[in-house]
């Protein structure tokens, strides 16, 4: 088959088994799945740009709160210890485990922030009908970094740490912990409501 390019834009190949499908509109918030292997082909998202922008802005505010305010405090035999989100990174660096400190810094702070900023960088100009500089590349970087931002995994780590210490000492969650919990929901929602096809349509438009 050697269809022209006009044909090809209505087709999509499954990422997991390479089977070709014809792109058909699906209902809002529904997912088109591969008939052979069941992988997700594409999703229809309502008001994708506005929704994602609102969530990303909310996320940015929560991110700042999560990093500035105390995260948890620990009290044992009358002595107490406050910490913030970045304290763990600093302590690991001091213990000469700089590799580990770097990994935790990237996954719990840097990549989640880059993800939010990246969404804003791509969508604010698109909303104003402009094309951001290096749109395709920026979106590609955003896509590649996405699996490495691990706010939700970090949250479970907090939970396990809390359980481990709760017998031993008094642990008080701080404002940052609550805002971090909301942040992970908001940033997951922002990513889920982002329809990448908006980006590719814009890339195709003549400037």
């Amino acid at each position, binding site marked *: *088959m050697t269809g022209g390019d006009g044909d090809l834009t209505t087709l999509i190949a499954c990422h997991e088994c390479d089977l070709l499908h014809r792109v058909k509109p699906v209902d809002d918030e529904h997912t088109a799945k591969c008939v052979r292997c069941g992988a997700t082909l594409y999703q229809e998202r309502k008001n994708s740009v506005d929704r994602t922008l609102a969530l990303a802005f909310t996320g940015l505010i929560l991110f700042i709160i999560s990093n500035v305010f105390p995260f948890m405090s620990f009290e044992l035999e009358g002595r107490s210890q406050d910490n913030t989100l970045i304290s*763990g990174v600093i302590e690991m660096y001091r213990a000469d*485990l700089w590799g580990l400190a770097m990994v935790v810094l990237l996954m719990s702070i840097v990549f989640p922030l880059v993800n939010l900023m990246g969404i804003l960088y791509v969508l604010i100009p698109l909303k104003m009908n402009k094309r951001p500089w290096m749109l395709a590349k920026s979106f590609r970087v955003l896509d590649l970094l996405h699996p490495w931002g691990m706010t939700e995994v970090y949250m479970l780590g907090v939970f396990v740490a809390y359980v481990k210490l709760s017998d031993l000492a008094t642990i008080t969650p701080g404002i940052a912990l609550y805002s971090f919990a909301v942040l992970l929901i908001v940033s997951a929602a922002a990513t889920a409501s982002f329809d990448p096809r908006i980006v590719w349509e814009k890339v195709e438009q003549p400037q």
Partner: protein
Amino acid sequence: MSAGTLTAAKAGLVSCHACDLLVNRKSLARDPHPACPRCGTSMHQRKPDSLNRTWALLIAAAVLYIPANVYPIMTVISFGKGAPDTIYSGVVHLIEADQLPIAALVFFASIAVPVLKLVGLSYLLLSIQFKSIWRPRDRTVLYRVIEAVGRWSMIDIFMISILVALVKLGTIATIEPGAGATSFAAVVILTMFSSMSFDPRLMWDAVEDTDG
């Protein structure tokens, strides 16, 4: 043509893994490093050198799996006495403290998931190398599960980072991170890269070849 029975490869098309654009293979053939005409990502019919890269990263992870489990991930120093904790003893302590749901969670994330990834990816790689046509859909689901659960193994690493920051009360109680933690983080990262370089379409290629 009827969509839903033909693969892109058989139709002479290459799919861009970033933006899903389909491009005629012939129009890419002249370029030694073809890029997607829409988004500029380099294009390949299948992920480049997938089997070798996946094996290499997986073997590196398997080697590091040993120090990750043998060396302590952290040491709790309380009133001068140090109690080193490995991944495994961390789970045992949670069971002893009657925190069964949390123990199950940590067991799943820190012990079951890394083993599932090492064994599962090895099995998927071997199934491709032996050109298996057995239940390709289920094997694709296995791959999808491996991709989805991989990152959750970082729970223990984040837990340690929180514990060392919180518990530093001099001689009363201090928690120090251990060398096992670095190896364990490396295992998680290497297996994530390994599953990213795996191409599940290779499983379906074997099925296509047998169907004629």
